[in-house]
C-alpha cells in the first residue's frame, strides 16, 4: 500500500500480503441473557508475541441496553482504494433489535475504540420506515445496510443509505420488486450485480425459531439478483427445499469472477451460482450436509449452516454447522466440484467436542473470520440471543467463547490452535455471548473491489 492511496488494497493478491492481524474487534452481547448491561465491542489481542495474547484488552459499552449487536462493517474498504480522502477508520455497529447504529472510531486508538456517533433507531424508522439492520457494506465512499423489516418489524424491509459523514440519505433501493424477505447481500460491480438472501421478517425470527413457520412460508427460500446500477431486483432464483433459509452470501473476491455462494441454513446446503457463456445466471447445489441422528431427538439434527466465508484467493470455502458443531473447509478451485479438505469440531449438539482448550464450548461454531493470508480462522459460538436460548439454554450461565483454527493453505486441512481461547463466560459483568469479528486492516468479509 502506498501513501497516495485510500483504504484497503489494490487487489485480493495484495491484500494477502498484508501484515498479520494483531487486534480483533468482536461483538459481545448481554441482550436476552438476564444481565442488565449494554452489549459491547471487545478488542482482543491477536499478537502471539504480546503478553495479553488471546485476551480481551478493552471493552466499549454501547449507550443503551437491549440493542443485540449482531453484524457490523467498516466505513471504507478496498472499494475506495483509489480515494486518498477515505480511511478505514470507523466500524458501523448496528443493534438489530433497537435499530440504533453505533459509529465506532477504531483509528484514534486502535486498542481502545471510542463511540463517535449514534444514529438512533427512532430517527431511522421515522425517516425511512426501516428497522432491524443487518449487513453493512461500504460502496465506494457511501454505506448501505440491509434492513430486515419496516418500522413495525414486517418484511421485506429494504436498504438504508448513509453518506460518508454517517448522515441518513434515505432508502438506497429504487424498488424491492417481489422480494419477500431480506438478510445478507454482496455486490460484484464489474458484472453490475448484487445478490441478496432471505431470513424472515423481524417479527418472525426475533422471538425465536418456530419450525412450523417454515412450512407456512414465513422463512425465505429464494435469492435475488439485482441490477446494481438501477438499484432494483432483476431475477429471483427459487431454491425450494434445497435452499431453506438462505443466509450468508459471498461472491468470489476476484472482481472479474461471477461465481458466488450462499449457505442455506436449514437445508444445510451450499448453493453456487455463476453467469454462463450466454450471460445467464445459473445455480446448483454443490454441498449437502446430511442430517445427523441424535439419541434424544425424534428426527435427525440438521447442520444449520449459519455462516460461509471464502479465502481471499477464492480457493477455500469455509462454513459452520452450528447445531452439529463442525467447521468445514472445502477446496473450491473448481467451484462446481468442491472437495472436503478439512474439518474440526467444537461444541454442537452431537457431543463430538464438548470441551476445547480447557473451556466448555456452549453453542456451536457460528461466526467465522479469516485472516487475509488465509491461515487463521477465528470462530465464535453464539448465533442470536433468542435462538441460543432455544438450542443451547446453558449459554446463559456459560457464555460464549472464541477459538482460533490454523488452516493449511498449501494442502488444505484445519487444526484448532491449542494456545488461543477467549472464554466469554468469565467476562467482568458476567457471561456474555460473542458474535461477529472484524480486523482493523481488513478481512475476508469486508473488502470488495470495484
Amino acid at each position, binding site marked *: 500500500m502506498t501513501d497516495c492511496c485510500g483504504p484497503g488494497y489494490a487487489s485480493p493478491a495484495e491484500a494477502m500480503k498484508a501484515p498479520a492481524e494483531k487486534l480483533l474487534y468482536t461483538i459481545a452481547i448481554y441482550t436476552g441473557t438476564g444481565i442488565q448491561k449494554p452489549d459491547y465491542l471487545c478488542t482482543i489481542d491477536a499478537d502471539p508475541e504480546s503478553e495479553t495474547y488471546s485476551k480481551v484488552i478493552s471493552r466499549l459499552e454501547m449507550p443503551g441496553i437491549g440493542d443485540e449487536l449482531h453484524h457490523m462493517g467498516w466505513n471504507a474498504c478496498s472499494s475506495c482504494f483509489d480515494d486518498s480522502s477515505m480511511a478505514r477508520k470507523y466500524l458501523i455497529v448496528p443493534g438489530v433489535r433497537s435499530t440504533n447504529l453505533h459509529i465506532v472510531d477504531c483509528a484514534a486508538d486502535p486498542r481502545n475504540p471510542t463511540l463517535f456517533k449514534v444514529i438512533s433507531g427512532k430517527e431511522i424508522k421515522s425517516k425511512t420506515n426501516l428497522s432491524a439492520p443487518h449487513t453493512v457494506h461500504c460502496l465506494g465512499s457511501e454505506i448501505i445496510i440491509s434492513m430486515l423489516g419496516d418500522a413495525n418489524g414486517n418484511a421485506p424491509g429494504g436498504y438504508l443509505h448513509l453518506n460518508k459523514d454517517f448522515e441518513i440519505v434515505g432508502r438506497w433501493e429504487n424498488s424491492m420488486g417481489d422480494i419477500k424477505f431480506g438478510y445478507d447481500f454482496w455486490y460484484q460491480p464489474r458484472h453490475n450485480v448484487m445478490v441478496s438472501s432471505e431470513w424472515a421478517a423481524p417479527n418472525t425470527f426475533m422471538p425465536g425459531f*418456530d419450525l412450523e413457520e417454515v412450512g407456512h412460508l414465513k422463512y425465505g427460500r429464494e435469492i435475488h439478483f439485482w441490477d446494481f446500477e438501477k438499484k432494483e431486483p432483476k431475477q429471483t432464483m427459487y431454491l425450494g427445499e434445497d435452499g431453506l433459509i438462505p443466509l450468508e452470501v459471498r461472491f468470489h473476491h476476484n472482481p472479474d469472477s461471477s461465481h458466488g455462494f450462499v449457505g442455506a441454513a436449514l437445508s444445510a446446503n451450499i448453493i453456487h451460482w455463476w453467469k454462463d457463456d450466454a450471460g445467464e445466471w445459473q445455480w446448483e447445489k454443490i454441498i449437502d450436509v446430511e442430517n445427523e441422528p441424535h439419541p434424544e*431427538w425424534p428426527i435427525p439434527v440438521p447442520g444449520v449452516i449459519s455462516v460461509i466465508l471464502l479465502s481471499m484467493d477464492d480457493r477455500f470455502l469455509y462454513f459452520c454447522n452450528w447445531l452439529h458443531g463442525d467447521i468445514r473447509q472445502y477446496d473450491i478451485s473448481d467451484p462446481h466440484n468442491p472437495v472436503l479438505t478439512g474439518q474440526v469440531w467444537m461444541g454442537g449438539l452431537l457431543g463430538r467436542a464438548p470441551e476445547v482448550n480447557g473451556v466448555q464450548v456452549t453453542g456451536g461454531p457460528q461466526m467465522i473470520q479469516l485472516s487475509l493470508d488465509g491461515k487463521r480462522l477465528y470462530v465464535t459460538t453464539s448465533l442470536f440471543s433468542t435462538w441460543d436460548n432455544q438450542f443451547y439454554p446453558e449459554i446463559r450461565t456459560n457464555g460464549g467463547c472464541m477459538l482460533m483454527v490454523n488452516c493449511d493453505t498449501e494442502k488444505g486441512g484445519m487444526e484448532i490452535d491449542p494456545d488461543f481461547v477467549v472464554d466469554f463466560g468469565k467476562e467482568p459483568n458476567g457471561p456474555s455471548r460473542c458474535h461477529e469479528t472484524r480486523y482493523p486492516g481488513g478481512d475476508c468479509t469486508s473488502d470488495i473491489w470495484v
Partner: protein
Amino acid sequence: MADTVTITLTNRDNATYQVSPRRPLLETLREQGVDLPWGCEYGGCITCAAKLTEGEVDQRAQVALNNRQINNGYVILCVARPEGDCTLEVGVESHDTLYRNPFLDPLADHELKADIATPKDAAR
C-alpha cells in the same frame, strides 16, 4: 377506568407499583426504577416478555408470541397495558417455558402465531 392499578412483581420480593392503565407496563415500571430487559419497544422481539400470573392485560399490539406462549401466560411488556391489578413474574427468570427446542417440541396447529394458527376445533 381507574387512574392507577397495582402491579405486583412476585420475583422482586412482591414489590408493588401504582401505574397508569393507559401506558405500556415496560414504561411505567421502568420509570419507577424496575430493572427490566427490553429490545425493540414495539412488541416484536420478545426480549421483554414476562409471565402474568393474575389479572388481565391488553396486548393486542404484540406480534412476538405464539399461542402456546400466550397460553403459558406470557405478555410483552413494551406494549401490554394493564386492565386492572396484575401480578407478574419479570425478567429472564420468568422465561422457563418461553423458549423451547423447535425440533424436540413441535407446536400444534392451534399453537402457532395468531395469523397462521388453525382454531383447535377446525383442526380436529
